């Protein structure tokens, strides 16, 4: 080959810097270019930081009772007021956020990092993605069986499904995680399956097949990384649903056992005192749930819009 053919396709482009920080920077710049996502990010970050540093942000423990001051409104001593047992609402609120976002209490002594809602979503992603990949990539009878079973699950109303699972297994943080995982799995599986159906027609999948790669390799190494964008956005929405579900379960008395701070049960308890002139105990956790769910939704929507624009 002559020198003229030393292809100058080779326009000298410096190789893109890779690495964690670079990725983080890219991700952030995408996030911040959308107003919706920025607002969502601020709300979510507020709750994450507050939950992370809860022990430093309040002088009271969430279970410490003050008999002399039940059902108070906001005062200097208690910025958000107290509940019917005189417990500080601010510290109950931020310790409640901790359970949702930062820790998963297994028993009194043992806890895992990363919150209950997030564990639930991670577990549903794990199951859902595996099932979705399998039925999308293999197709045929495998697809039929998996999807019809999941359809059957989806036909049960979600609240009912939560109630059945938690009442059957008992109320604990771990069982809430399991309930969130089971309820979330069909949705994730559907999403991943539809993404897989598209990706598996690409030539790089053909190339992997002509190398005789195993089904598992193709599913998890070739397909999954290319589906991660929509999965991440879906996961953010799902964390929102999971927080909502935790609130619901707590409200119905199926969340964390008392006296642990749980937003749902706080609303349920506080509800009795709304008419007697102390709406605070019910108001704050309601706002907390609502703002966190809305924040996550804004974040996911903004992110989706922004990534769609680049495609």
């Amino acid at each position, binding site marked *: 080959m002559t020198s003229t053919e030393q292809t100058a396709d080779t326009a000298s482009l410096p190789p*893109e810097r890779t690495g964690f920080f670079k990725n983080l920077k890219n991700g952030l710049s995408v996030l911040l270019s959308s107003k919706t996502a920025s607002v969502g990010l601020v709300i979510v970050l507020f709750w994450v930081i507050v939950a992370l540093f809860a022990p430093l942000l309040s002088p009271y423990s969430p279970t410490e009772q003050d008999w002399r001051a039940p059902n108070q409104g906001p005062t200097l001593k208690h910025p958000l007021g107290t509940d019917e047992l005189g417990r500080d609402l601010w510290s109950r609120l931020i310790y409640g956020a901790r359970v949702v976002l930062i820790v998963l209490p297994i028993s009194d002594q043992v806890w895992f990092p990363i919150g209950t809602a997030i564990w639930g979503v991670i577990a549903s992603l794990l199951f859902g993605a595996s099932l979705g990949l399998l039925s999308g990539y293999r197709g045929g009878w495998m697809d039929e069986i998996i999807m019809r079973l999941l359809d059957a699950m989806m036909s049960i109303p979600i609240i009912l499904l939560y109630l059945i699972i938690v009442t059957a297994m008992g109320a604990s943080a771990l069982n809430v995680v399991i309930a969130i995982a089971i309820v979330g799995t069909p949705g994730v599986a559907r999403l991943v399956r539809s993404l897989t159906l598209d990706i598996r027609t690409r030539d790089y999948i053909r190339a992997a097949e002509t190398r005789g790669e195993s089904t598992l390799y193709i599913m998890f190494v070739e397909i999954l990384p290319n589906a991660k964008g929509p999965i991440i956005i879906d996961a953010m929405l799902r964390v929102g649903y999971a927080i909502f579900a935790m609130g619901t379960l707590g409200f119905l008395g199926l969340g964390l056992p008392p006296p642990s701070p749980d937003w749902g049960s706080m609303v349920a308890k506080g509800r009795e005192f709304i008419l007697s002139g102390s709406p605070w105990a019910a108001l704050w956790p309601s706002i907390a749930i609502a703002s966190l769910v809305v924040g996550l939704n804004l974040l996911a929507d903004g992110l989706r819009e922004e990534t769609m624009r680049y495609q």
Partner: protein
Amino acid sequence: MDSPPPIDTDTVLSVNNLSICYKTRKALVKAVRDVSFTIKRGETLGIVGESGCGKSTVSFGIVDFLGANGLITGGSVLFEGQELVGRSQKELNRLRGDRIAMVYQDPMAALNPTVRMGEQLTEVLTSHRDISLPEAKKQCVAMLKRVHMPDAEQVMDRYTHQLSGGQQQRVVIAMAMLNNPSLLIMDEPTTALDVTVEAAVLDLVEDLKRDFNTGILFISHNLGVVARVSDKVCVMYAGQVVEMGRVTELFKKPCHPYTKGLMRCVPKLGTDKAGSKLHPIPGRVPHPLKRPEDECIFVPRCNYSTDKCVQSWPGLYEVLPDHVSRCFYAEKVLKESLKEKTGNDKKAVSADAEEQPDETLLDVDNLKVYYEQQSKSIRSLFGLDEPQYVKAVDDISMEVAKGKTLGIVGESGCGKSTLVKGIIGLEEITDGDIDFLGVDIALPVDERQIETIQDIQMVFQNPDATLNPAYTVGRQIARPIRRFGTVPKNQAKAEVIRLLQAVRLGASYYDRYPRQLSGGEKQRVGIARALASRPDMVICDEPVSALDVSVQAAVLNLLLEIQKMLGTTLIFIAHDLSVVRFFSDDVAVMYLGQIMEMGPAETIYAPPYHPYTEALLSAVPIPDPEAEQKNIRLSGNVPSALNPPSGCRFHTRCPRRSMLPDNGMICETEVPPWRPVSKGHHILCHIPLDELRKIDSVVSAA
């Protein structure tokens, strides 16, 4: 072209110094700079250039279809003496579809799939003219007949999906011609069509131009297509006109290095790799943001450039009467083009000196690949219906010799892709044997021995889908090396870099992601990945059809060089007959799942021809307006593979049946014989060879 030419009544469109920009988030992107041309009544102006050169933007600019972010920043567009730039969309709407009509690439997208053809056609008339519906219908049917649409009345009641691609494009053209426009803009109207259909549509364009006296702006990336239909040709590069002239002049005497480069990088029909060479244009079209204002835009890819080219921007310079070029050295280019024309190309007729007995690498025997067609009837739900089969590959036998290249050609849907998928094991084989180096490999890929898998690899068509966007180039090439253990683990990276260098990409590509590469570069990485397992055979499924011609030449050269170096056997699928002829030692012509003709490349492209091969060859667009080519057009569509014609599969469309007694009754009833013509050359046809030999050559180059 400093002063606008005087307007005369003959001029339909006159574009003067048109500049167009697109607004993006970052900056104003200049897409088209200072373009001027005129189109007279009954004249076709062809615009050629690679993708990203602003051809389509010009056509959108004329009717202001630039969208929300496009704007005309300068110049004027005079249509029949009226200025179009600055008109409101409402006023333009009245012109578009009436006085100016447009035909775009994808007829599927131009036609509304939920509305019957009749309604879509009549709407054109009723919305622009005061015509009653029955009268409009009558005119539409007449127009459909005019564009040679079979059963025009019935077509009026059909939906888009009930027509073939070629028919759809005919409807679109009919729709465009209904109001007898004075200007017709055609943007790549035949790119999505098969070569035989393309030829028929181009004939139609030529016809209509003559009969309606319409001015046509014809945009294409294909030099052959432009040469066939145009009177004048305008070559665009990076948003500028670099050369313009009469078609015969321009093709015979190119005066701009880019035009010359474009012509030298496509193989001519009838040349082969032994006798000639492709000359790719180095580099690629510069990004719109990186186009210098005050120097020649072509400098980085030009062989002629000097300091002068960098110091000032060349104007359009009239080299010959009516023939302008944007180059300081136009006359030098012209002189050299003329010199090359007269004496070369005949140098390297290397006689096949050592005629070694070819070792057979792959032996396919009576291969069949059928797909079961799910019937929608209730009977079939209970298993009462006979299952129906799409016979994608039906009874194919062939041999591929070691170190040689087998080219497979045929229209889309002829089963060429299915055939190679069967060979590589991606498609389940219904019946037949595939023998590879003495091993029976008629198995799906996951049941094959790892050595067999390693020995057959594949290069894919679509550069955007061939690489996994999630991983770096290095990792993707390293994967087959690790999987097949071709080198010890610690040397894998060195091996990847060696492969990258073999495909003319540097080691710097190791850490890049596919999104950072151009189409040609992606295709090179795809080739490197296929070679990484050190295969004996590589199957190339249309590896260059999605690339621009200048890049295509480089990739073809690369494949040739690799084959010479490693002795790899290639199966090369393409729909471009010139490329296949250039690239292959043996050629198989497929039609509806069967091989119609097979033999050494030079015998396929010379008489005696199979009637189908003859028709294909006569349809190839040749980038030489003076070449004489027979005009054989196939009628009708490719029949369904679900229910292929009896006897000879080609009998429904065969133009040569009349050479047989009874107008070829035998073709409908009996499968034709596989007649040997010469060594290794066979034709599947009832017509006796002596008769076929009497047919002249399809193409006689001027």
